[in-house]
């Protein structure tokens, strides 16, 4: 059990069965009144934020999270299937929970999956991932438009801006934290 005194930014707790992470926290105490704790929290599944005021003496159940190394297997409709690298168990995640990671997931990509109980609620990708360009317009020498980037589609269907010299079929490195082009893979 957690008490209000344990609450601080980053603490994860369970409210109405859902895991929440504390995003802002302050001790407030009006005049001669009782100590109160103003808390802003974010639902780790839906992303919905919640404002609550607690009194001292209230208790909370900590939300225990487990992070496991998994491999992405395949997608069916809006369901993404991953396999635990340790015990080969498979877990299925909704597209909402996968979030932006879906732009970078190729079969057999190694990821880290965040579990709340048995429920997978988030995916962490490696910071950099290599993806092949499947479509981009050729660079016209003598292009005087002054543009220093152009759109390119990679094998997951994700579209990003790349430098003009990138050609179809090339392997590029993408920073998964920003979704931006990082460099090209030589050779």
């Amino acid at each position, binding site marked *: 059990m957690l008490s209000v005194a344990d609450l601080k930014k980053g603490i994860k707790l369970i409210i109405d069965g859902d895991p929440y992470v504390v995003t802002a926290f*302050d001790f*407030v*105490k009006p*005049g*001669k009144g009782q*100590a109160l704790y*103003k808390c802003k929290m974010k639902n780790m599944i839906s992303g919905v934020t919640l404002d609550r*005021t607690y009194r001292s003496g209230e208790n909370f159940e900590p939300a225990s999270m487990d992070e496991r190394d998994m491999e992405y297997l395949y997608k069916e409709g809006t369901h993404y299937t991953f396999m635990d690298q340790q015990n080969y168990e498979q877990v299925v995640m909704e597209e909402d929970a996968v979030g932006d990671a879906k732009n970078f997931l190729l079969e057999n990509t190694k990821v880290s999956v965040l579990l709340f109980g048995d429920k997978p609620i988030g995916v962490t990708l490696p910071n950099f991932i290599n993806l092949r360009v499947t479509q981009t317009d050729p660079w016209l020498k003598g292009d005087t438009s002054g543009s220093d980037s152009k759109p390119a589609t990679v094998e997951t269907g994700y579209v990003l801006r790349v430098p003009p010299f990138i050609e179809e079929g090339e392997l590029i490195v993408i920073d998964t934290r920003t979704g931006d082009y990082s460099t090209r893979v030589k050779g």
Partner: protein
Amino acid sequence: MNGSALLIRAQVIRTIREFFWEQGFLEVETPLLIPANAPEEHIDPVPALPWQLQTSPEICMKRLLCRGHRRIFQISHCWRAAERGSRHLTEFTMLEWYRADADYRDLMLDCEGLLRCVADRCGIERQFSRNDIQIDPHVVWQRFSLQEAFLRFANADALTSVQNGLFDELLVSKIEPALGNFYTPVIVADYPAEMAALARLKQHDPQFAERFELYVGGLELANGFSELNDPAEQRQRFEQANKVRAQRGAAALPLPEPFLAELSAMPPSAGIALGVDRLVMLTAGCATIDEVVAFRPEDL
């Protein structure tokens, strides 16, 4: 803490002294280590065995009123256990001043004079600031009775809110944020009797006490009242505070017996406590109390 906040802090403290000296107040120093504070329901002293550190200098300052001093002020450190947040330090700096033959309305006038003086001598463009709002102490201040504030900002009756235990929650979640929208300091006056353990009750409406709070930019800055000087009633209120403490599992506090013994000699008086760190926050435009002290407890 940056250098400019440290300078503003020194200027504010010097200005407080100048203001009260100019008004003919005597600056006093009373012991910080005392055998008993005034027992309060929700204020826990820091023990310094076998005694405790003061949570406020009020007990000793009122004893000086009993001995005939008529206008006194003090800037001193106070300690309140487990109070730490963006507006709270366990060890903080308090200004208290007391006037004999006065009531809480005289203190409101003192507040106007003091805040105007601090803004003139230390403020940026002679104003205070909080959450990007400029607060001007030179124009007519906004005033509400506490009941008006509850009805207007919390859509609730103040006395009912005391009964159902929602008083403090409504104050911090509805009323204080609403007071942050005013461009002048705000005085909220006449608190429910239960919320004013050391204040005199209003003669014509004893459900309320002559206690007021001063807010600037929604930040609670000072708490003043017409002082209770009936020893029997004061003892009973201290005992009541200890009863409430027991209900919330807090230790009973010793009563300040010498104070109770002398209290009948106190003339009708008024006294007020003002958070100096918060006044510096408002003057320097700092969002947190951490920014206006040289050291935070976490840095020690």
